[in-house]
């Protein structure tokens, strides 16, 4: 039996310490998870949604000098494609798959894009102008949106590598058989739309391919927009401000509607912060109470012959124990929290399915610093109580 052993034993026998450790663990872990969740969600958006081709397409209305603008855009490093209304999206019928939907008319949107689009099945959509397209892996016809409760889904896998027939919408109205036109376009692959919002009926082809086909069926009277696509969402501000300087006002063609309720994360973040502060206050109260109880024992130990140095040493040991065990408690609750997040939350909130919880090291660091501050504060209270114990010598007996 040594002094150290006794100190350790006493630490673990004190039930209040467990309460303190659990509180510290829960609130630190909760804080880390909530903040990491917000961080992960934002990262997820940045990587997966916001950088999707559609979010990188911008339009400029009524350019005074089209040629000058097109030259300007083409000269910009960040701009990877410039096109007009013909290269923008339109709706088409797809007779090939209509058979599979009991004769329903199946519509697909085909958008023109400039860059490559990665495929999860088949091949990527190439960045160059070829007569190929890429479609969503989970395909739902446009009509699906109009008729509620019908969740028509279709697997386009069997069509990969096949020439698909597409029919422009305007050539297929009743009594217009004379203008009926069909085109062939090869489906090279399927992209992962599960991680995107509402991209269930969006196929993509190169803007030149799309323009080439459309020019054969339509004459767009009001071709007043110039569209351009940038290489990365990061450059959005830079490009837009540069255009502004030249007098052009570019707008994103997509509304950035946050798929997941990012707002609810903000609330969660506030709750997390509130909980954190409250818990820390409780911890400090509990600790002060513990100390109040301890003061008598400090006096006793002094009577029994502990010198101030030894009492200080014990205090340091207690603080170290508190710190180590706080970290252990934090790790345990963090693991529990992550487990809950991975196994429970996605079942109840499907939007969590896509998000990979990244425990951001920054959050760890932040919480760690707060933890160190708290422990340091507790240590200081400890020292103060030692000093108080010293001055209170008279009341020992």
């Amino acid at each position, binding site marked *: *039996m040594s002094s150290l052993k006794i100190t350790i034993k006493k630490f673990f026998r004190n039930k209040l310490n467990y309460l303190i450790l659990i509180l510290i663990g829960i609130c630190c872990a909760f804080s880390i998870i909530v903040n990491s969740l917000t961080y992960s969600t934002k990262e997820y958006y940045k990587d997966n949604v916001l950088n999707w081709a559609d979010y990188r397409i911008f339009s400029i209305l009524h350019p005074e000098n089209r040629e000058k603008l097109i030259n300007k855009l083409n000269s910009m490093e960040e701009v990877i494609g410039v096109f007009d209304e013909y290269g923008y999206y339109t709706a088409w019928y797809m007779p090939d798959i209509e058979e599979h939907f009991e004769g329903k008319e199946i519509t697909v949107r085909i958008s023109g894009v400039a860059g490559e689009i990665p495929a999860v099945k088949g091949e990527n959509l190439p960045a160059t102008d070829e007569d190929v397209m890429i479609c969503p892996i989970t395909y739902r016809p446009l009509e699906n949106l109009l008729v509620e409760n019908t969740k028509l889904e279709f697997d386009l896998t069997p069509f990969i590598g096949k020439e698909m027939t597409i029919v422009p919408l305007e050539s297929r109205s009743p009594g217009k058989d004379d203008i009926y036109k069909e085109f062939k376009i090869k489906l090279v692959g399927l992209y992962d739309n599960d991680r995107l919002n509402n991209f269930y009926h969006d196929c993509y082809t190169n803007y030149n391919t799309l323009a080439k086909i459309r020019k054969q069926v339509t004459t767009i009277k009001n071709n007043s927009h110039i569209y351009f696509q940038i290489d990365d969402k990061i450059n959005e501000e830079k490009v837009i401000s540069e255009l502004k300087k030249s007098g052009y006002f570019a707008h994103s063609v997509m509304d950035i509607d946050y798929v997941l309720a990012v707002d609810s994360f903000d609330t969660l973040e506030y709750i997390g912060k509130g909980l954190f502060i409250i818990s820390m206050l409780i911890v400090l109260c509990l600790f002060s109470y513990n100390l109040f109880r301890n003061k008598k024992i400090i006096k006793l130990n002094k009577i029994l012959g502990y010198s101030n140095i030894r009492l200080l040493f014990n205090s340091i040991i207690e603080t170290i124990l508190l710190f180590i065990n706080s970290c252990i408690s934090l790790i345990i609750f963090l693991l529990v929290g992550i487990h809950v997040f991975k196994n429970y939350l996605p079942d109840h909130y499907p939007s969590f399915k896509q998000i990979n919880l990244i425990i951001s090291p920054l959050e760890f660091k932040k919480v760690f610093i707060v933890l160190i501050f708290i422990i340091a504060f507790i240590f200081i209270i400890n020292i103060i109580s030692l000093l108080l114990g010293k001055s209170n010598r008279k009341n020992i007996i």
Partner: protein
Amino acid sequence: MEEKNTKNNTLISLKNLSKSYYKGSKEIKVLNNINLDFEPGKFYLIVGHSGSGKSTLLKIMGLIDKPTNGEIFINNNNVNNLSDRKLAKFRNNEIGFVFQDYFLDKLLTAYENVTVPMIINKEYKKRKIVKKRALELLDFVGLKDRIKHFPKELSGGEEQRVAIARALANDPSIILADEPTGNLDVESEKFIFEKLKEMSKNGKCIIMVSHSKDAINYADKVLEVKDGVIL
């Protein structure tokens, strides 16, 4: 300035000892110019009215409180101006305390409570020695079968017996007991008094404050504190 006390066979010697408390500018004289000698192997009983200064006297002798004036010699050493560490060592080695409310560490078992003063003492480094001594002492106070009990699992009398075992841990020459039976029934009181008496016969200097009528039957010498002086 080490003054030597010349008297032989004196364990504690109080010289012109005074103690005053100050409440604001008002001086409350508790002890006034006390000269006393305590010898080993004797059982001293200190009596006096409530507030007469008995506890104050014990605290000063126990090196827990400092006198306003005067000097204390223990084993012919002037202990007035010792450093905190030396005082702690002195208390640990030479003085055993027994308090009215037992004052055990609630987070430690009976056995562990008894070992605490030994753990502090460097001479008892060996685990085996500490264990043997603690068990002997618990046996001495009749608690051999209660060693693993926590204070809350002991009766008041048993708690006080643990406190006595703890006071004896480092084999000190002085035992200071401030109303050790104040909270106990007659039977427990008798046991405690008898143990203290036995200890004095074994050569320890027992100084006890007690309001008990029976205490006088055990004491070798009775000291009454009144108006700050010893009668």
